[in-house]
C-alpha cells in the first residue's frame, strides 16, 4: 500500500517536471523588438513571431525597406530623388520611383483637403529657422518666401512618373509625412514576410497591426505636450489594432523668446509657427494620413481641425493652446486618459 503511494507520488512529481519542461520548451509565439537609427530618428519594429530567427529576418528586411525609402526622400542628401526635384525647381521635371511618387501624390491630396494647412512646399520658410540656435528670420524674409509656398505648383505626371516644381526657388520638404509612409511600407513588407501582428514605430509615427499573443490590442502611449519630468510623461494610452497613430507637437523643436514659443510647425499661409494647439494626435487606417493630418489639424486649430478630421473619417485628440483636450467621438472606444487630463 505504502509502496503504491510512493510510486504514485514519484509519478506525480515526474509528470510535474515534464509539464514544466514542456511549457518552457513550447514554441508559442513571442514578442520581438528591434531598434535601428533610420531617417534621422530611431525606428523600432515589434513583431509577434514563432522564433527569434523568424522575427530577426522579417524586421531586418523591413528596416531595409525604410532605409531605401528614406534615402530617396532625404531633404539633406544630394543624391536623393527629393534633392533632384528641388534642384530642378523651375527647370525640369524629374523622374522618380513609385515610392517617391506615392508619397508626393498623397501629400498633395492632404494639402488639397486641408486647403493648404499642410503644404510640403514649406521648405523655403522652414530652412530660414534654426530652433536650436534660436534664429528667427526677419518679417521681410518670411513674407518674401511665402510666394514660393504653394502645393498647387507641384506638377505630377503619373504616366511618366515625374515630379516638377513650377517655380525656381521652391523647396519640397516631406518631413511632415514621410515617416508615416515609411511605417506603411514597412508594415506591408512585414506582412509579405508572413508576420501577422506587430508595430512599426518610426519615432512617433506608428502603425499597429494584428493582436498581441494574449489576443489584446497594442498599447500606444500618447505623450503629454507639457512634460512634468524627464520620464516619458503620458497623457493617455490608445489600444490599437490595424490602426496608425501620429502626433505633432509644439514641444519637439522650439525656442522661447519674450514669453512666446517659436516651434517648427509653420503655418504655410503666414510662414510663422501655428499658435492654436499644443499637440495633435490622429488615429487613422494608414500611417501617411495620420502623419499628414496631424500637421494640417495643428495648423487649422481645434475648430476647423475637428471639422477636417470628422469629414475625413479619422479620429483625433487635440490639445489646444490652453491645454483643453478636444476629441472625436471614436476616441472614447480606443483611448484612456490618465488622471488629471
Amino acid at each position: 500500500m505504502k509502496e503504491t503511494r510512493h510510486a504514485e507520488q514519484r509519478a506525480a512529481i515526474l509528470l510535474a517536471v515534464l509539464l514544466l519542461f514542456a511549457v518552457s520548451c513550447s514554441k508559442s509565439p513571442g514578442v520581438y523588438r528591434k531598434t535601428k537609427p533610420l531617417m534621422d530618428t530611431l525606428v523600432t519594429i515589434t513583431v509577434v513571431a514563432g522564433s527569434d530567427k523568424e522575427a530577426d529576418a522579417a524586421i531586418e528586411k523591413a528596416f531595409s525597406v525604410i532605409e531605401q525609402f528614406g534615402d530617396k526622400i532625404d531633404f539633406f542628401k544630394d543624391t536623393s530623388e527629393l534633392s533632384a526635384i528641388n534642384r530642378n525647381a523651375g527647370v525640369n521635371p524629374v523622374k522618380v520611383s513609385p515610392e517617391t511618387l506615392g508619397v508626393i501624390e498623397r501629400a498633395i491630396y492632404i494639402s488639397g483637403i486641408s486647403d493648404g494647412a499642410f503644404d510640403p512646399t514649406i521648405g523655403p520658410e522652414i530652412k530660414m529657422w534654426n530652433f536650436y540656435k534660436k534664429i528667427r528670420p526677419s518679417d521681410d524674409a518670411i513674407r518674401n518666401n511665402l510666394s514660393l509656398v504653394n502645393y498647387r505648383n507641384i506638377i505630377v505626371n503619373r504616366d511618366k512618373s515625374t515630379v516638377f516644381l513650377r517655380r525656381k526657388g521652391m523647396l519640397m520638404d516631406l518631413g511632415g509625412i514621410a515617416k508615416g509612409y515609411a511605417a506603411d511600407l514597412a508594415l506591408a513588407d512585414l506582412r509579405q514576410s508572413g508576420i501577422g501582428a506587430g508595430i512599426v514605430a518610426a519615432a512617433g509615427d506608428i502603425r499597429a497591426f494584428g493582436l498581441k499573443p494574449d489576443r489584446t490590442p497594442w498599447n500606444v502611449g500618447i505623450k503629454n505636450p507639457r512634460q512634468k519630468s524627464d520620464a516619458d510623461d503620458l497623457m493617455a494610452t490608445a489600444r490599437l489594432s490595424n490602426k496608425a497613430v501620429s502626433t505633432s507637437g509644439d514641444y519637439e523643436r522650439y525656442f522661447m523668446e519674450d514669453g512666446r514659443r517659436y516651434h517648427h510647425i509653420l503655418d504655410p499661409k503666414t510662414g510663422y509657427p501655428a499658435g492654436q494647439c499644443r499637440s495633435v494626435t490622429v488615429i487613422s487606417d494608414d500611417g501617411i494620413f495620420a502623419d499628414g493630418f496631424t500637421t494640417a489639424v495643428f495648423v487649422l486649430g481645434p475648430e476647423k481641425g475637428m471639422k477636417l478630421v470628422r469629414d475625413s473619417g479619422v479620429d483625433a485628440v487635440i490639445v489646444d493652446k490652453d491645454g483643453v483636450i478636444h476629441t472625436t467621438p471614436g476616441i472614447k472606444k480606443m483611448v484612456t486618459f490618465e488622471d488629471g487630463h
Partner: protein
Amino acid sequence: MKTVIRNTTVADKLLFLTLIAASVAGIFFSREAMPQGPDIVITVDGKPQYTLPRDKDRLVSIPGPFGDTVVEIKDGKVRVKEAHCPNRLCEKQGWISRGAIVCLPNHIVITVGGKAGDLPRGIDAVTG
C-alpha cells in the same frame, strides 16, 4: 528532515516545484523589466563604444566619416556640441536628459536613461 519530506503531500511537492520554477523565471523577468546599465550610452556603427555616468561633466570626441563629433555631458544632460555632417540635425537637437540623439551620417546614437527604444511598463510604443 526525513519526517518532513515523508509528511508532505503530492500537492505540497507540486507547490514546492512551482515556487522554484517561479523564482528562477523571476530572475529573467525582472532583468527584462528593469533596464540595467549606465546612464549615457554612445553607440557607434551599432556597437556600444562609450558607457558614461551622467553625473560627471565631460567632453567626448568621436571620430567618424565626417570628422570628429563632440559630445558634451553637463549637469546630467547630454548634447552634440559639434558635428560636421551635412544636416547637423544632431547638433540642432540640443540638450536631452532622456531619449536619444541620432546622427545618421556619422553612425552615432546617444541614449540617456536606458537602452534605445526603451518603453514605459505595459506600453508597446509611444507617439509624440
